[in-house]
């Protein structure tokens, strides 16, 4: 064994390196890693509050837009949430006070997205061939001439 001294030395070096790596690793593991599985458990709570919910649902407009809401809920668009045609409540109201302007899209393309006759739509869904349904020029807010978006029955 006298001539294997260098083997023992390199083995020692190895041992030191490997121990250092494992000890060092202990300090680097993120705090909540592994609580529930091989992931950082703190992230679950972080994901819960990653951002405030933007959409607040169809009923959320009612307190401030009573008339519109009532008309809407009685009409053919009751299944279409206000936020679909406008925008998420968060863009408009934060903490109960108005903080931004709600977009209003008056263009016929808004209605066309849902009501234009194209391949793919179920037959029973009310849809129109735009060019036949609207005899005047197909532009701007034509649909609103005859339909109230909140209660579209002409």
């Amino acid at each position, binding site marked *: 064994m006298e001539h294997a001294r260098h083997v023992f030395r390199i083995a020692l070096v190895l041992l030191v390196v490997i121990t250092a790596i494992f000890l060092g690793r202990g300090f680097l593991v993120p705090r909540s*890693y*592994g*609580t529930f599985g091989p992931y*950082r458990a703190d*992230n679950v709570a972080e994901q819960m509050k990653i951002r405030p919910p*933007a*959409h607040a649902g169809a009923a959320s407009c009612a307190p401030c837009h009573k008339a519109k809401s009532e008309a809407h809920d009685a009409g053919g668009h009751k299944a279409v949430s206000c936020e679909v045609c406008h925008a998420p409540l968060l863009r408009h109201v934060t903490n109960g006070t108005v903080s931004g302007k709600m977009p209003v899209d008056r263009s016929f393309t808004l209605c066309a997205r849902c009501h234009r006759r194209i391949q793919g739509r179920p037959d029973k869904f009310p849809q129109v061939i735009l060019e036949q349904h609207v005899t005047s020029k197909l532009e701007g807010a034509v649909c609103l001439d005859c339909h109230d978006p909140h209660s579209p029955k002409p």
Partner: protein
Amino acid sequence: MDHAPRPLASTRSPSPPPEAPAAGAATPADPGRRDFLGAAFTIAGGAVVLLAGLDAAASGETHVPPPGGDAYNWEEHRWAYVIDTSKCIGCGSCVRGCKAENDVPDGFVRTWVERYIVGPGGSYVDSPKGGLDGFPPVPTAFTPTKSFFVPKMCNHCKETPCVQVCPVGASYRTKDGVVLVDGKSCIGCGYCVQACPYGSRFLNPATHTAEKCTWCYHRITKGLKPACVEVCPTGTRAFGDMMREDDPVRQTIDHERVSILQAHLLTEPQCFYLHLDMEVR
């Protein structure tokens, strides 16, 4: 494995243990080989873990308070999703709603809508911008006999190929059945993007981390519905809790003939489809 779980460093008061019946009802019994193999892997994994000093990685029994605090206990929910393709009108409201809710970067989608136009002479599929602006009429070279829309999104698989391949544990599946990405741990290798058979993941060009549908985890843990369900005007999309006996989604999954996407890959998706056509992959 006999090593004690690491206590969570936070000082929340421990919540009462979850109700036993709820926990049992959710997991269908699947005895036999898979369980055995699972156990074998766990033991083998545990050995590696012990050897490597990775005690943290072992998922032992948890006596730790759930991460939601008192407001939300993730052991009391198991989320699932049902999509009735026969109702979809392809308006793209869900795609826009998702984008507005989650700041999805341009050119990427967390949920999208596909249109299938099918006839004896061929089939045509499209999804312009994922359906963000709806769909235009298209001329087809063949005579279509049926056409329909299919909304798609992350399937929140039970046997997730994406979580399996994440090298750093940045992707994981929560106890309430949602597959999430930890943006602070993700190294942006893109392996999960490659591994997802459904194309639901992407690398966010701004944050350089993987991103995907979270079923709006920030909403559902507050009792709200995911944004896409919230804005769907036709009831195509439905979201529910498999731990609630009377939940309509659970009723549908339990009693209707539902299908899943790419069933042969055995990823066990938790998005179920009604009236799915064979053309859909």
